[in-house]
């Protein structure tokens, strides 16, 4: 019974993981500019993230160590430095975008400028991390994140063309402006398959004391949770396709997102979109900050746990303190939140190979995985995902140049 409760919780938590500032921005842009056409990218992102989360959770449950820990141990510190810096850089930019996302929501609600909200948001996140435990952080943000279900309600009430949506689940050529189309596809994948998500998931499995008994919980949580979170992301794309695309509205600023649900849900829709943006971005802010601290602590062999009082893992606590403080700076200096998000999503997509390819090695290392390593099907899926990550690395920057305008 306890395990089913954990599955339910894991599924709910995935809303916060999947739906955050990057996925809200990229799916709204994709729906507004290409209708349903980029639904396949959301589906691919969902499958890719579920696959990586299931493997990193299994790795932690079987070996008793997190993915970052094993990366350093099995590949050596010299290699570890590469994913360390790539993930730190990308996660820091995504964290700055999430803080800006909460600030945008607060600006839409109050009319008070974004720059005044960035530092209070960072402070609130830090207090939660300093005073809270892992379960408070995970469950608190997850419960509030359920407000994002409003996108599914909105999509249903807008009566989308289900046939067209179904056809869009398979990739197709761009209806216009191919560089922009592929740039948005890469950004959706970058927003979905963020390294911080599976690094956080792996560290969370250790925090929650997962063992081999939790392999079923892990599998169900990873797949069902991402199906739920990805489904809401798809619903957001559908809403943008039905509301914005016929009006020829492109999402050039976050403020426009406030109009997404006013047609089907009126004033309630307006406030629920703001609440969704605020809560999901705040949840992601806390999770990414923790993911950065986990990565540093596990990489350098420091004591770490969100369940310890800060005096027991001072360097871990200092890491998240510095990370969240620094990430509040861009928004408080007036950086364009949407531009910040778009750059960080392209960079995230480009950084994937350094964390995806080593997983292929670890999942086939019998010293680490015993008999719980990958079978041929999961290996094949991971090889395909590794190849995709290399394509994204090669394509991200040219597409950002050609289609990111």
């Amino acid at each position, binding site marked *: 019974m306890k395990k089913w409760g954990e599955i339910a919780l894991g599924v709910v938590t995935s809303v916060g993981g999947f739906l955050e500032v990057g996925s809200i921005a990229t799916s709204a842009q994709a729906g507004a500019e290409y209708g349903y056409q980029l639904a396949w990218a959301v589906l691919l992102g969902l499958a890719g993230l579920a696959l990586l989360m299931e493997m990193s959770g299994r790795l932690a449950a079987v070996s008793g160590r997190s993915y970052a820990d094993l990366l350093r141990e099995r590949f050596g510190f010299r290699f570890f430095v590469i994913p360390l810096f790539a993930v730190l850089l990308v996660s820091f930019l995504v964290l700055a975008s999430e803080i800006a996302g909460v600030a945008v929501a607060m600006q839409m609600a109050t009319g008070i400028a974004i720059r005044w909200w960035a530092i209070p948001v960072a402070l609130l996140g830090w207090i939660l991390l300093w005073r809270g435990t892992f379960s408070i952080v995970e469950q608190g943000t997850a419960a509030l994140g359920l407000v994002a279900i409003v996108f599914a309600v909105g999509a249903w009430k807008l009566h989308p063309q289900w046939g067209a949506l179904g056809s869009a689940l398979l990739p197709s050529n761009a209806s216009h402006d191919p560089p922009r189309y592929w740039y948005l596809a890469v950004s959706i994948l970058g927003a979905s398959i963020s390294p911080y998500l599976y690094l956080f998931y792996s560290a969370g499995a250790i925090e929650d004391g997962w063992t081999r008994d939790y392999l079923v919980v892990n599998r169900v949580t990873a797949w069902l949770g991402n199906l739920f979170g990805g489904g809401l992301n798809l619903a957001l794309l559908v809403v943008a396709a039905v509301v914005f695309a016929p009006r020829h509205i492109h999402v*050039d600023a976050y*403020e426009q997102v406030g109009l997404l649900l006013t047609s089907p849900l009126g004033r309630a829709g307006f406030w629920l979109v703001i609440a969704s943006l605020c809560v999901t971005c705040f949840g992601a802010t806390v999770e990414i900050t923790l993911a950065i601290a986990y990565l540093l602590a596990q990489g350098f062999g420091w004591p770490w746990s969100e369940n310890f009082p800060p005096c027991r893992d001072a360097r871990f606590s200092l890491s998240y303190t510095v990370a969240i403080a620094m990430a509040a700076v861009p928004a408080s200096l007036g950086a364009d939140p949407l531009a910040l998000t778009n750059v960080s999503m392209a960079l995230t997509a480009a950084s994937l190979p350094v964390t995806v390819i080593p997983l292929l090695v670890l999942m086939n290392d019998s010293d680490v995985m015993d008999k719980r390593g990958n079978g041929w099907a999961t290996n094949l899926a991971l090889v395909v995902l590794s190849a995709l990550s290399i394509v994204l690395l090669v394509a991200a920057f040219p597409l950002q140049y050609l289609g990111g305008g």
Partner: protein
Amino acid sequence: MLGAAGCSRAPDARQVLDGVRSWTATVRFAADELRSGATTAAYSAEIRDAARRALAASPRQLGDRPVPADTAEQMRSATDSLATALRLLDAELAAR
């Protein structure tokens, strides 16, 4: 790496035109939703300000590049439409 990620080519005239038209549609939509009571005055003022910034930025985005005569004419018409939509939203906001 960051520099490369931050780079994107300057939008062409057609993209700038699409951007102005998108903001016109946004401002009209925002005015309708404000009138129906679905949004707040503070939020509509945010949309107005963002649209004004986009309107002011459009000549800068085009720079000194030559623009075909028909696109230039469409651009004039689009900026006029956006200015009109902004005046209507201003009037709606002033009435509150």
